[in-house]
């Protein structure tokens, strides 16, 4: 079906040669293995004609050997079966054993429940699996607590239920397995909240004598072991070799700039109707719902058959009818926001179009994985936007297709967050001082002084007048929380740093693919008021930061520069904001927001001997350009958005006394990004160097050095100097001298 496609496309009147290059990711044959599983499961697999893949067998064996495991094989490789089999087998062998499944979203828990119910029935087990969350009717709650042996819930609900642990004594004392599916959702500050929550859960389970093993399942990531260790606080065996057979993946790198007369949207619509018109079932992923609808609409006008659009927040019936239509082929194409990226059962399609790089390879391949049936070849079209990350992957197919994935960072050092979870833990069971780290002991003493904990012979006891679990919410990033509301609906909560940055009055704000306009930001009240709208522009705030270094934690000395990491104080001022239409600034508006001062983690690169081969007039422009490129490439290494990092460059930093580039975590108390980038800095510098060096422009362009959110409007920038600096940083001597 895919053969001869390029030829057909070349004969299309609208095609202007946008396919800049193509690549093939070869297919693989399935690798099977056997595992010890009890009779009802073996029979069921035989009935369904399933032969276990090697990675599935590995998970089963790891579990049987008493190990925790993390499985990170790609979408549609049978991860669900891989963890359901050993868990259900354990529950089959011990008639009292129970399991807890944790899902980031209620909808995903409900999908999993259907699978468990089916498997339970097929294997003739009586486990009464049930979801238990805010939607569970009161009339079913007692029965679930009394009889269910598998409970599926989400972190927010679990947080609320932990203090009522005695009602769950049966399950907790026989808890055999904890399954954490879609674990890649638990990253950054939210991830560390979940990590603390899991430690609280394990402490309670331990109190009841339960001895659960943990299985984590996640999209492919660079650091499964360290991620698992941070999230669950114990070591897990990593299973990441995909043993399921894959069809060949043909990849087109589509350059929309080749035809400047037509917008990206309109080109994608033509491509979509071209593909679906040839019977190629296609899914197209966009960043916003507005563009999803636009593409679907204009593809239909092009005469494309049966194109649907999809977004988050659809009712279950609507979603099921779409899934059904895609499976039985009555729907030939779908344009979606990231909502269809995970956990939804639409079977394999023939082609996927990625409109814009979705921010991470993790997401990109979750999306690409939606295309591909068994070992038949499938097509992936990547259509980049005009920004450094998109253009980098566009011009570096090897990085796009390679096995490298981002790291997931779970920062565990937030004292505010730790204090909140300590208070909750002390409200769940007395917290003996012997269980605490020195840092926690200090925090506990502070909580006692504030009248929240009391020190008793049994340990610390919570004594606040309001419930600990009510004042600590999992969305509460650092204690100061801004709530974003639309009408009377709460959309999300955010850190004040982020609220100022992204939710200033007048800002266009994107939430789960929907666009909103901010009407009001009230920092005292902790409130952002937005309304739904479909503007044809986006906005970005212009900020200037000053960074004061408070403490150094580690220094790496190199021949011509030193790489340092530590604590800083950032003073951020807001200069205004820009509205941007079709990648062009149409207006700059003033913005009246107070200075914001916060402490965070940062890494900085100092050139103690100066940069003698750069003239003084070019020095700042060179540092500034290198700073932009480093920030732009950070999402390649660590799962983050480039806006999660801030940067400042100085030809002579007053504290360092030398030319310096500072990159800092743009969140109060830090988000762990600087530390993760410090570890992988040579690779970051290498990517940034390649990006700028290989960009055909001469002065710096939106695809390499220009940043739309630069506080100084991208002034000054000096590309040759930036290349020189990045080359210096990338040419990393093999043995850096580490000084603590």
């Amino acid at each position, binding site marked *: 079906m895919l053969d001869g496609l390029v030829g057909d496309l070349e004969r299309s009147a609208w095609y202007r040669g946008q396919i800049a290059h193509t690549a093939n990711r070869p297919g693989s044959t399935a690798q099977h293995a056997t595992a010890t599983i009890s009779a009802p499961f073996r029979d069921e697999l035989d009935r369904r004609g399933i032969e276990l893949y090697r990675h599935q067998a590995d998970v089963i064996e790891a579990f049987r050997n008493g190990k925790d495991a993390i499985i990170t094989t790609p979408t549609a490789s049978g991860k669900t079966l891989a963890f359901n089999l050993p868990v259900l087998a354990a529950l089959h062998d011990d008639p009292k054993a129970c399991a807890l499944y944790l899902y980031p979203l209620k909808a995903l828990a409900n999908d999993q429940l259907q699978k468990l119910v089916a498997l339970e029935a097929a294997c003739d087990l009586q486990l009464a699996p049930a979801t238990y969350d805010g939607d569970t009717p009161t009339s079913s709650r007692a029965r679930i607590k009394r009889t269910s042996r598998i409970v599926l819930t989400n972190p927010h609900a679990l947080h609320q239920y932990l203090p009522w642990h*005695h009602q769950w004594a049966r399950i907790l004392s026989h808890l055999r397995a904890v399954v954490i599916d879609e674990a890649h959702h638990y990253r950054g500050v939210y991830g560390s909240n979940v990590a603390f929550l899991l430690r609280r859960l394990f402490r309670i389970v331990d109190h009841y004598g339960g001895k659960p093993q943990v299985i984590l399942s996640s999209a492919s990531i660079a650091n499964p072991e360290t991620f698992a260790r941070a999230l669950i606080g114990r070591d897990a065996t990593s299973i990441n070799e995909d043993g399921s057979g894959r069809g060949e993946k043909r990849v087109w790198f589509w350059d929309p700039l080749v035809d400047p007369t037509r917008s990206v949207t309109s080109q994608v619509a033509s491509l979509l109707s071209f593909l679906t018109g040839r019977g190629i079932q296609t899914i197209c992923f966009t960043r916003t719902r507005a563009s999803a609808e636009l593409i679907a609409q204009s593809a239909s006008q092009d005469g494309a058959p049966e194109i649907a659009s999809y977004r988050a927040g659809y009712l279950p019936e609507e979603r099921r009818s779409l899934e059904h239509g895609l499976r039985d082929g009555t729907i030939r194409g779908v344009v979606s926001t990231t909502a269809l990226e995970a956990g939804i059962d639409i079977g394999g399609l023939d082609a996927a179009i990625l409109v814009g790089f979705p921010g991470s390879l993790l997401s990109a391949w979750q999306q690409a994985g939606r295309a591909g049936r068994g070992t038949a070849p499938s097509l992936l079209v990547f259509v980049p936007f005009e920004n450094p990350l998109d253009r980098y992957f566009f011009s570096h197919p090897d990085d796009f297709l390679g096995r490298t994935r981002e790291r997931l960072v779970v920062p565990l050092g937030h004292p505010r967050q730790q204090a909140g979870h300590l208070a909750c833990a002390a409200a769940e069971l007395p917290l003996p001082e012997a269980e605490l780290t020195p840092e926690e002991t200090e*925090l506990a003493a502070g*909580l006692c002084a504030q009248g*929240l904990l009391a020190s008793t012979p049994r340990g610390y006891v919570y004594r606040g007048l309001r419930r600990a679990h009510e004042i600590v919410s999992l969305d509460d990033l650092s204690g100061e929380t801004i709530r974003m509301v639309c009408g009377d609906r709460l959309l999300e909560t955010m850190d004040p740093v982020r609220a100022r940055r992204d939710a200033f009055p007048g800002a266009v704000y994107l939430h789960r693919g929907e666009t909103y306009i901010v009407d009001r930001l009230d920092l005292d009240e902790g409130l952002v008021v937005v309304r739904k709208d479909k503007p044809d522009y986006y906005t970005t705030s212009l900020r200037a930061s000053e960074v004061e270094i408070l403490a150094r934690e580690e220094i790496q000395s190199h021949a011509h520069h030193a790489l340092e990491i530590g604590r800083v104080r950032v003073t951020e001022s807001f200069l205004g904001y820009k509205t941007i239409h079709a990648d062009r600034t149409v207006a700059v508006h003033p913005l009246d927001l107070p200075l914001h001062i916060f402490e965070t983690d940062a890494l900085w690169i100092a050139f103690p001997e100066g940069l003698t081969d750069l003239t003084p007039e070019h020095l700042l422009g060179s540092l500034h350009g290198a700073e932009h490129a480093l920030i732009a490439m950070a999402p390649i290494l660590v799962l983050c958005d480039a806006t999660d990092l801030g940067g400042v460059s100085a030809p002579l930093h007053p504290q360092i006394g030398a030319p310096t580039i500072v990159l800092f975590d743009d969140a109060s108390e830090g988000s762990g990004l600087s530390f993760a980038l410090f570890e992988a800095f040579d690779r970051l510098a290498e990517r940034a160097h390649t990006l700028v060096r290989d960009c055909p422009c001469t002065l710096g362009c939106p695809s390499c050095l220009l940043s739309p959110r630069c506080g100084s409007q991208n002034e000054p920038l000096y590309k040759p100097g930036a290349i020189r600096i990045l080359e210096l940083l990338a040419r990393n001597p093999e043995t850096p001298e580490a000084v603590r």
Partner: protein
Amino acid sequence: MAKIDRSVGWLAEKARAGSSAEHRTTTSSQQAVPLEDAFPGAVADPSGVLTIDDHPPLSPLDIDRAAVTDALHAELRLVYGIGARFAAGLREDGYTSIPALNDHPRWGSASSNLLKRWGIPPDPTAVYRTLDRWLSSADPLHLRALGLLPIESLLFFDLETLGLGGSPVFLAAVGRFVGDEFRIRQYLAPALGAEVALLERMKAEIRDASALLSYNGKSFDWTVLRERLAYYGLPLHETPIHVDLLHHARRALVGRVPDCHLSTIEEHVLGIGRSNDLPSAEVPIHYTAYLETGDASYLVPIVNHSKQDLISLVILLKYLLRMAADA
């Protein structure tokens, strides 16, 4: 230290939000009153729990013991399978009591099974299990069936806590009739470290009682007691007979009171006026003030408040029993 303050300060602020806790604690410049002066005659045991005894003048409790069995037998709905509709039909056909059903072709075996399960005289635990299963918890039979139990084994109880669910219990009050006297015993935790001992005393009190009486105790006091015992790893497995007078007051006094707070019922129905009483909402604030200042004079109104709750409970029970008997 500044860092610690910053890290915990936000929590303390949120914990205080919506309560008026701050301003009370700082007002006491006067001499702190020690515990022994605030509660002369109270006894502290080695675990630190302070026991305060009192016996307020109350007339003896009298429950019509003879009529209980007849009242139970008259309720046909207690037989498995008989609902309101069947019961009405059966009464029309002349079946006015459960024993009369023994020869009934359809209900005979169910009614004789029930009577066998109850025994003679009826076993209170078996009876209450039947009542809890088939009748609303506000049905007056729950009250009348107390007549199956020795009056001296009924335990009236009430807890005072630092807040709603999940917060420590610092005062527990129990009351029982001994002869003609109503004896109140209060267990006070002078520090939160004594809470666990207080809870254990309560556990023992409950073990010795045949039934519990409370006001809103089914949703609150009993739940809190179980939760706090579980918090200390001392699960409470018993489910004793428990009559919650709130349920009965709600049904019996509908239309006669604006709400069902115990204090409202005291005022509108029982004719009890509390002078200088501490409002319930201020109880945790006073205890917190005591913890922070060590001034036991903050505790006196709490202890009096809890004592009055127990006295009102007895008066309300008598009132509701009269209504049940008259009905």
